[in-house]
């Protein structure tokens, strides 16, 4: 087991170097200069331009810049945003809980709806329910997020008035961040009604962000269930005269869930990618919106640091998933080594 963990950890280092190199190179390959963007139509004198570039460390050769960047990262310093002049790590820590809160709710939504639907579709294979569900889930999977979000806003927020349009909480409340998770912070605060406001603000973005994972989970559950339902031991269970519900819930589901859990783990990356659009539309103050803005402002430190931190989180989640398998399934732990 120890060797397994060690191998997994050693794989992290090249991934890390890859991520830093890639973000560093990509943002610099995109034309555009943060100083020019700041000056806008007014223009800026060449001397002042050089001065500001030097202040940002952009006057040095690329290799030196990369070296400095890596050295800083190793020391735990991700630099400062060139726009707001606050440390990248501080900004990330302020915004990240909002993204986690949204992602967790989205994946919960996807699981709570997706798993039962997948199971029912598998059990009623070939039925009208099965066919329509698979059709709908394919639609959900291919739905452009921004369009879907605007549609839901127009229906539920503008026409029906059931949910708020955007934001994390009604602007009438002022909840001091303690944990950064607003559902928790609003309970801790003494503002009555803050919790229900925060919850109601989560509904639409969580649905939008959860739509693609929901479709994936439902389809995966269905196919995995179908496979298991064809196994000999299920036939045996049925032959023994067990109640159909017990056969499905106890015998089939447990085994069918293993590949589904893998898929759920893989959705973390999908969630972060989806969060970028969802957050922009719903004015959700998370890291998605923050990263998008850093691209358009050519805020190199934010983009580099932000992507690195997101990559670190995804790697961590994947590592945990792998380790869980290792514990669950000895064949994986020893396989190939």
């Amino acid at each position, binding site marked *: 087991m120890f060797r397994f963990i060690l191998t997994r950890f050693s794989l992290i280092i090249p991934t890390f170097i890859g991520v830093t190199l890639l973000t560093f190179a990509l943002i610099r390959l995109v034309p555009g200069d943060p100083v020019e963007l700041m000056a806008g*139509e007014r223009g800026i004198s060449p001397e002042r331009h050089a001065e500001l570039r030097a202040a940002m460390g952009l006057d040095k050769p690329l290799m030196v810049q990369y070296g400095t960047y890596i050295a800083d990262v190793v020391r735990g310093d991700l630099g400062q945003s060139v726009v707001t002049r606050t440390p990248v790590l501080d900004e990330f820590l302020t915004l990240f809980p909002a993204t986690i809160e949204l992602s967790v709710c989205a994946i919960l939504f996807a699981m709570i709806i997706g798993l039962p639907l997948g199971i029912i579709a598998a059990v009623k294979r070939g039925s009208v329910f099965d066919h329509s569900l698979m059709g709908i889930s394919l639609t959900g999977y291919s739905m452009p997020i921004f369009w879907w979000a605007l549609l839901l806003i127009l229906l539920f927020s503008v026409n029906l008035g059931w949910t708020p349009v955007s934001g994390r909480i009604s602007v009438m409340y002022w909840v001091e961040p303690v944990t950064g998770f607003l559902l928790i912070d609003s309970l801790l605060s003494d503002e009555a009604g803050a919790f229900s406001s925060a919850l109601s603000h989560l509904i639409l973005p969580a649905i939008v962000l959860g739509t693609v994972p929901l479709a994936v989970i439902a389809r995966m559950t269905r196919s995995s269930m179908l496979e298991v339902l064809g196994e000999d031991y299920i036939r045996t269970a049925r032959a023994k005269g067990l109640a159909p519900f017990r056969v499905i819930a106890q015998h089939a589901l447990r085994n069918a869930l293993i590949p589904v859990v893998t898929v759920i783990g893989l959705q973390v990356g999908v969630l972060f990618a989806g969060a970028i659009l969802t957050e922009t539309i719903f004015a959700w103050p998370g890291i998605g919106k923050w990263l998008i803005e850093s691209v358009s402002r050519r805020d190199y430190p934010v983009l580099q640091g932000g992507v690195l931190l997101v990559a670190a989180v995804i790697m961590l989640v994947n590592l945990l998933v792998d380790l869980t398998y290792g514990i669950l399934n000895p064949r994986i732990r020893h396989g190939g080594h």
Partner: protein
Amino acid sequence: MHQALRGAALGLTLAAGFVSPLAAKTLVYCSEGSPEGFNPAFFTAGTTFDATSRQVFDKLVQFERGTTKIVPGLAESWTVSEEGLEYTFKLRKGVKFHTSKSFKPTRDFNAQDVIFTFERQWKTENPYHTVSGGAYEYFNSMDMPKLLKSIEAVDDYTVKFTLNEPEAPFLANLGMDFASIQSAEYADAMAKAGTQTKVDQEPVGTGPFQFVGYQKDAVIRYRANEAYWAGKAPIDTLVFSITPDASVRYAKLKAGECHVMAYPNPADLAAMRTDPAVNLMSQEGLNVGYLAFNTEKAPFTDTKVRQALSMAVNKDAIIEAVYQGAGKKAKNPIPPTIWSYNDKIEDTKYDPEAARKMLADAGFPNGFETDLWAMPVQRPYNPNARRMAEMVQADWAKVGVKAKIVSYEWGEYLRRTKDGEHQTMLMGWTGDNGDPDNFLYVLLGCEAVGSANRARFCYQPFNDLLVKAKRTPDVAQRTKFYEDAQAVFKEQAPWITVAHSVVYEPIRKEVQNYKIDPFGGHIFYGVDLK
């Protein structure tokens, strides 16, 4: 499953209750983005000024709300010496700075605060100069370091600015956002506590609204300053709800989640006009969208060629197609809302035949080839540069001039056009301080070649007029110089002046007394709710 359903049902019931009790008169403004920070002296973006200088701070002189007219602010009155070198301001007495979590003022606003505000930006030896990474872009780009000779406190309530050379627009500069007056006492207190950067994060001003708090990328909250020298604002609380997507801002406005929204989508304007809950306000912007010829590159060194190509462009069609009616044809480089606008000037008539003839006279009977640069982004003065370029291209083709459209990423576009790589290009400008100098000298003066003067136009008789106008404090005289300059401009034709765009501001019907700011800002002092 059962549990899940119950959860969903609970969610829906809760959702119905999201409308929370309103505090006494709270105005919610759906802004388009997050401020870069809370010290307006560091930044140049309107979004940042909306959140800082336009609510929290005052300047020595201000612009009357909804106009570009300079009126007293923290200075009650001022005198300018005869040669235009000394500006002496009498300061308002009894003005209080805000009290915040970290700071309680012990004295009223006085001359020390004015000196601190400007010396921090100006003097490298000022202990606050480098705090928060200090780069004072606006102060520098308005050439303040070159202009200022000294600032001194004559007494507690009198401040004298001495300039190196006469500069009439100087007064208007002092009404700009970077000149927001900061508290020297607050700065000292934070320096003692070792928390200097707080001055730039928790702003303390004398303005109509007091900063309460900011939750990054989500919301900014202010409360009305009870002790405001010009009287407390009619609303009690001001909230900025940061909403980057324009369609979502409109949805929030419709749903009553905000009262005023920034920058509507042009596509939504038709619906807003007929929306019973919304009052769509509009005003000509303080801007100009233009096409600049690179006057250093042949054949555009020839005035005749420039005039011919101006004649060849059908501006009416552009206003119709690109601005979709939300623009006014421009004949002068300054918008009509600025004083000294020369209305006697006749615009170049659209006449392809005459243009062709003029080109032949200039030695190009068969036309020539050129490039035409188009901005990749939407700007307040030009909603669709690409489309505009295509229309100009088609117009020019009719007189035999083949233009190749060139476009780069915005930052790259700015850099390359500043360096003069283009032959012709689209550009525009939004005024900073309502002074004609801020258009004419900044964009067409000889000194601005290599920065904002992208036509690289340096014509001595024209430049002389601008310099003379700068040196004279007398407005009547200045007006005359600028009127003459506009006539010279028309005859020299370094640009094709295309349009002044119209600014739209959708507000809810219950909002009263809102005025569109010609500078493109959003100002909430004086605004009330029914």
